[in-house]
């Protein structure tokens, strides 16, 4: 066991720190759930990519740096430490990208990955349907093979950033006689095709972060299929694995929130200590964020050495999502009567972005597989408890 960074890792940290210091916008970008904010974030992705910092874990020939998972942690630590913008194309670069590398043809990789890396093509997900949420195998949207294309009919929902995105990836039922997770196919769909209607759904903050996508005889070329026809579930599980796992929610994000919570507590201690549970909650935030970081490094080292991510990765999603909720609840408690004010309200003072974070934290235990589903997976696959 060696818990120190190598010279190369330290040099890598210095390099990204220097680049971010020179390039991160001084003023925070607008929300990427607004037209202008989306444009700003897309431009930021292009800038990141111009420094070859867009997708550091991707291979060099695809515009990445071939970083291993420890370097990925270092990148994320510096990125969050610098307060750099959220990744508008996270569904593409963190979820679809790795899946494409595993299941895509050479042509698909060449076609999709570079434009994903520059932010030229922003991706959204097409999993959930009105009748298929946690029960993803209940998908009913159809893709019927006709000659050199699929004809898609149906409806997807809760597609984050679909209002502005260029492409959607999702699962469609190609075998009408199939049931459950059989007969599903993973298809990449450009959102500008005839027959597609995207209807925005305002989220808790009032902005159209979600959308429904309606498909009415949409013709998609066969080469937009990822993996084999009828084997979409397997491909999708790879994506879900990445999502739950190391890429989407690296510890740095929560360590920064915990550090901000410590600062908030220290700055408001006289008032905060009127509630004797606050100090405990602040310390717990730090400890849990630290535990998430330590555990992630342990996993990353194991994977770097050729190990596989296992069912224990289902614990990851529960841990960070509930940590995020507790931290934001604690912060609002410290802010007291000011907590309900949006930062732009004239009397908001220095409330910061806690309220926005609090709202977003509510979604963490739902997206990427509701925590109840994660607990089922842990019980049945990790602990070996019997299935009904």
């Amino acid at each position: 066991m060696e818990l120190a960074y190598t010279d190369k890792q330290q040099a890598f940290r210095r390099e990204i720190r220097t680049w971010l210091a020179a390039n991160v916008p001084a003023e925070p970008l607008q929300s990427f759930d607004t037209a202008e904010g989306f444009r700003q974030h897309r431009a930021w992705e292009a800038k990141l990519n111009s420094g070859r910092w867009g997708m550091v874990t991707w291979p060099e020939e695809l515009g990445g740096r071939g970083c291993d998972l420890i370097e990925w942690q270092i990148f994320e630590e510096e990125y969050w430490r610098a307060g750099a913008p959220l990744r508008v194309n996270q569904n593409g670069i963190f979820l679809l990208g790795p899946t494409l590398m595993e299941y895509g043809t050479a042509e698909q990789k060449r076609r999709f990955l570079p434009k994903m890396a520059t932010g030229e093509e922003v991706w959204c997900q097409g999993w959930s349907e009105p009748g298929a949420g946690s029960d993803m195998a209940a998908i009913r949207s159809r893709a019927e093979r006709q000659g050199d294309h699929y004809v898609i009919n149906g409806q997807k929902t809760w597609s984050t950033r679909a209002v502005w995105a260029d492409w959607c990836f999702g699962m469609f039922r190609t075998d009408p006689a199939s049931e459950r997770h059989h007969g599903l196919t993973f298809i990449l769909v450009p959102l500008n095709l005839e027959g597609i209607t995207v209807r925005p759904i305002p989220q808790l903050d009032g902005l159209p972060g979600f959308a429904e996508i309606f498909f009415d005889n949409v013709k998609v070329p066969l080469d937009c299929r990822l993996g084999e026809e009828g084997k979409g579930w397997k491909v999708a599980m790879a994506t879900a694995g990445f999502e739950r796992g190391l890429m989407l929610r690296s510890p740095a994000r929560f360590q920064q929130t915990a550090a901000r919570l410590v600062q908030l507590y220290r700055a408001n201690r006289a008032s905060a200590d009127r509630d004797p549970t606050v100090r405990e909650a602040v310390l717990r935030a730090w400890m849990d964020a630290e535990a998430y970081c330590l555990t992630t490094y342990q996993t990353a080292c194991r994977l770097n050495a050729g190990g596989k991510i296992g069912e224990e990765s289902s614990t990851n999603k529960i841990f960070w999502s509930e940590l995020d909720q507790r931290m934001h609840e604690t912060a609002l408690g410290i802010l007291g009567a000011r907590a309900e004010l949006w930062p732009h309200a004239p009397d908001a003072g220095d409330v910061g972005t806690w309220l926005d974070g609090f709202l977003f934290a509510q979604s963490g235990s739902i997206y990427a597989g509701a925590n109840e589903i994660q607990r089922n997976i842990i019980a049945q696959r990790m602990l070996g408890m019997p299935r009904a």
Partner: protein
Amino acid sequence: MDFRFSDDQRLFQRTVREFLVAEVTPERIRAAWQTPTGRSDELWSQLAGLGLTGLTIAEEHGGLGMSELDFVLLAEEMGYVALPEPLIDTVLVGAPLLARCGNAALASEWLPRVAAGDAKLAVGLACHPLVADAHVADLLLLQHGDEMHAVPRAEVTLTANECLDPSRRLFRVDWTPSASTCIAAGAAGRALLGAALDRGALGAAAQCLGLTQRMIDLAVAYTRDRKQFGQAIGTFQAVQHLMANVAVKLEYAKAPVHRAAHDVAHDAARAAVSVSHAKIAASEAALLAARNSIQVHGAMGYTWEVDLHIFAKRAWTLDNAWGDRALHKLRVADCVLADDAAIGAGATF
């Protein structure tokens, strides 16, 4: 950066696990409850035969010269079987204190005997006024203010205090500090006492990981066998989620314990906060494991007959051993709430 144990360390862990699971059975533990000392000379000889009593002791004193990192995985296995013998107190806490107290004659006198399995050590700190296993210890390492004293058992008077865990034997120790028993004072004394606390808390935390896993295993097995409403109770989501919550707690307590072992092994400046974090996290996992495992056992979980209580009681007593919750939370607070605290992304290593 390589946050992994070596293949040798994992192999040693498996060897020790196989031995402990075969030898330290619930039946043997229950049998020991009925004996005057609650301890087995035969088992201690077996542990010595595996090299465990000399694991952290230098080769020049007849030990294996291994580190806390080698020991921590074994301590997890000792927790898994709820080993009653004072192996952790002797090997992870006591022996390294003798080795580093600066008294070479004392170290030369005792460490070879400890390594050979011929002597046991007990450690008493002010944060826990009663001393575990003082009755079988040959030498007691006792706190007196900011001094550490080494006192042979013949020179102390013991008063037994019965406690929750029938395997745990606690004693009030009456003794008289003297210049001849003092092995470290002042700054050296405080350093040694700090090391004792860190090592004891690390050992408790590692045991809690093993205890948690054992209680999960027992409860999961029970939910497969026990049928209600015509099916195994483990099929019910409410029951599954009780155990899933324990698994989550355990999963995120492991790395902090391993990090703490690393920091203790390297005398890292931040060992105190690493150990306290590990102790809090592992203890909470074990407490939740006890609570939820009893719950899924139903009324059986509230009986003396089911083995679960062997492990639950160890978890409950370790929670406040080697520093209670308040002590460890204060040590975390001292670090995290300090003006110059190094926290946030990138500050972990």
